[in-house]
């Protein structure tokens, strides 16, 4: 057999296999790709699949996989990940990158009636490379905040893109009203909410000082990992001030579908803020 012929045979066999057909059978039926939509390799069902060929205890592996989003039980090809695992990993990474580089959906902001302000960062790359600018505002922006917002509110809440615009898109519509209504139910007054673009957490200290809020709460997109890009955090501080220790911030993290559900998070944060006002403390000073 010549090399040329061998290559031809191998190519045929590989192509046939890729199309989901046994190598020998001629392709008469339409392939799976033509009849069914492509599977989403980042969805939960796909990730739950066990790719180890002969697990000693499949039940145990399945149990373990329900406990963690980490890529366990994926098998290997020699010293490397299998192709399917590698592709899922890259797809997850792509989702994370998109979440960082995208802007928040304007529709979400208008649904929530939020006006927008921007930190000293002028564009996305600057936001990512200059954290110092992401916690400052121009004097004009500060004036704009002062003129548009109620001054000296008991609680000032705002939304911020942080490192995941997608987290804002996914959760803000449920967290913010649940939180505002929750506080209203407790008889706690809230200021005018708004949206900050290109913001970092400590921007809340500047906002707290500018508006004279007792408690400031920012709902901000968390840096996405490879498990989810939808996760939002609430950073909350009593009388936040520029230069205060980080330990004075209380955080409620992991607000997303697989973590704490958005509406429940809103209700929980309302209780946290209520306690904060009662005890006049936040962060490590506030033992819940």
């Amino acid at each position, binding site marked *: 057999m010549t090399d040329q012929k061998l290559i031809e045979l191998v190519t045929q066999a590989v192509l046939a296999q890729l199309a989901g057909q046994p190598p020998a059978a001629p392709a008469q039926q339409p392939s799976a790709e033509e009849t069914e939509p492509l599977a989403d390799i980042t969805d939960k069902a796909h990730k739950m699949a066990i790719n180890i060929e002969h697990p000693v205890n499949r*039940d145990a592996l399945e149990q373990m996989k329900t406990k963690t989003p980490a890529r366990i039980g994926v098998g290997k090809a020699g010293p490397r990940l299998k192709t399917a695992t590698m592709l899922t990993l890259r797809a997850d990474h792509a989702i994370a990158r998109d979440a960082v580089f995208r802007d928040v959906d304007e529709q979400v902001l208008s649904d929530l009636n939020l006006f927008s302000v921007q930190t000293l960062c002028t564009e996305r790359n600057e936001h990512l490379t200059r954290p110092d600018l992401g916690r400052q505002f121009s004097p004009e922006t500060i004036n704009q905040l002062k003129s548009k917002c109620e001054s000296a509110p008991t609680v000032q809440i705002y939304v911020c893109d942080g490192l995941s615009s997608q987290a804002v898109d996914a959760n803000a519509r449920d967290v913010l009203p*649940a939180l505002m209504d929750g506080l209203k*139910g407790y008889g706690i007054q809230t200021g005018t909410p708004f949206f900050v673009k290109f913001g970092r957490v400590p921007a809340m200290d500047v906002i707290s000082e500018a508006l004279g809020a007792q408690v400031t709460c920012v709902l901000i997109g968390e840096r996405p990992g490879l498990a989810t890009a939808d996760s939002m955090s609430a950073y909350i501080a009593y009388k936040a001030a520029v230069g205060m220790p980080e330990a004075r911030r209380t955080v409620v993290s*992991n607000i997303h579908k697989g*973590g704490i559900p958005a*509406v*429940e*998070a809103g209700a929980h944060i309302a209780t946290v803020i209520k306690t904060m006002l009662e005890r006049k403390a936040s962060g490590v000073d506030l033992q*819940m």
Partner: protein
Amino acid sequence: MNGVSILSVGIDIGTSTTSMVLSRIQMRNTASGFSVPQVCIVGSEIIYKSEIYTTPLVDGILIDTEKIRAILEKEYDKAGITPSMIQTGAVIITGESARKQNASLVTQTLSSFAGDFVVATAGPDLESVIAAKGAGAQQYSKEHSCVVANLDIGGGTTNIAVFHCGELCAKGCWDIGGRLVQVDRQKKVTYLSPRLPAIMKAAGVSLELGRTADWQELDRLCRVMAQVLEDTLKFTASKLCEEMRTAGSSRLTLSRPVEYITFSGGVADCVYSPQEDWFRFGDIGPILAHSIRESSLMRDYQVIPPKETIRATVVGAGSYTTSVSGSTITYTDESVFPVKNLPAFLLGRETEHQCLTGNDRNLREETEWFLEQNDCDNLLFCIQDIDSLSYRQLNLLADALCHTADSALGKEQTVMVLCRGDFAKALGQAMQRRLLDRKLVCIDSISVQFGDYIDIGRPLMNGMAVPVVVKTLLYG
């Protein structure tokens, strides 16, 4: 504020024996400081085990309430506790159904000193689950990711529960036990269970009260009983298996084969360590244990030692009946707790989703119907299908529940809601805004089924969570 422990009592009044245990159930907030609190039961420790008493009976059938009370008084004294110290637990009356005729009276009498939040519980299926948990079958199946069946063989019944990786997958109860026949030292028959004739027929044996039984007869009888258990576990349910199934028990249906077996109950002690004195207990327990040792149960499965044998049920009742709600919940008034014997009203998938669209007609009609059917003043709205919802849907659900509560429940009744999904705090807050001054309890992360009753204890750990007991049956 990291952990608390609550004192739990378990009282088991069985066909042949009665016992009590006290345990400390430890709860801790297992969430990190950065996330929402999550109170979990992290362990339980048995701190006192009573002696094992022969269940006192009146006329050989009914439970002697007064004597039970005297036993418990004595044991509480020995343990150095008073009823007011007990925070949770369960009284369970197991075994032959005839003995349960005065069960409700027994639990009423005991309630005064079993503590504030001790539940009376019954039902053959639940007994099976409680015994298996006490025997450690659930834990073993979870830790070893395998299928474990526990056979709790007592005086009147054998309770079977099967767990796969810690999850209950089958349960049931059969009228097979060591005291279906009782004999004296001279092998004269002193008691024959009304459930025995079917077994005698299958074994080709006929025993009579007052007549002396020979060993071979009793052995044949016990072999048939062991056969029923073998067939049941192999799901080749014979006619006799079906006939001997306890009234009100489930059939054992298994989706995967049993790998390991634990035995518990009084007869288990004789299975693990054989008795040579056949008539030591005045019954056929040791002979039944012998038949089980000879049966294929010992060959076809890997038999492992249980954590408890004769005390499995009482330990299960004391340590494994209490669960804990989610840790973001709503209640308006601590004085409404403990809540006892609240019937679970399952809205059902269709009605739940109707509520999310703002349509509450079905909910109102079904609520009124449920109250009427159960002849009760209040109920627990159970939302079991909705996993997660948007804030808009949450408000519509709150509207539906509040309208229904206003129209169907008396003004003085506390509005009680339980959801499986984690949204009770948000739903509770939304309902509170609508109900204003009315009392409200809204808890989550608990699964219930049709026909369940629920008890809710006093809030724990700064009010973060409440202990919950889900039971399947009430007496009377």
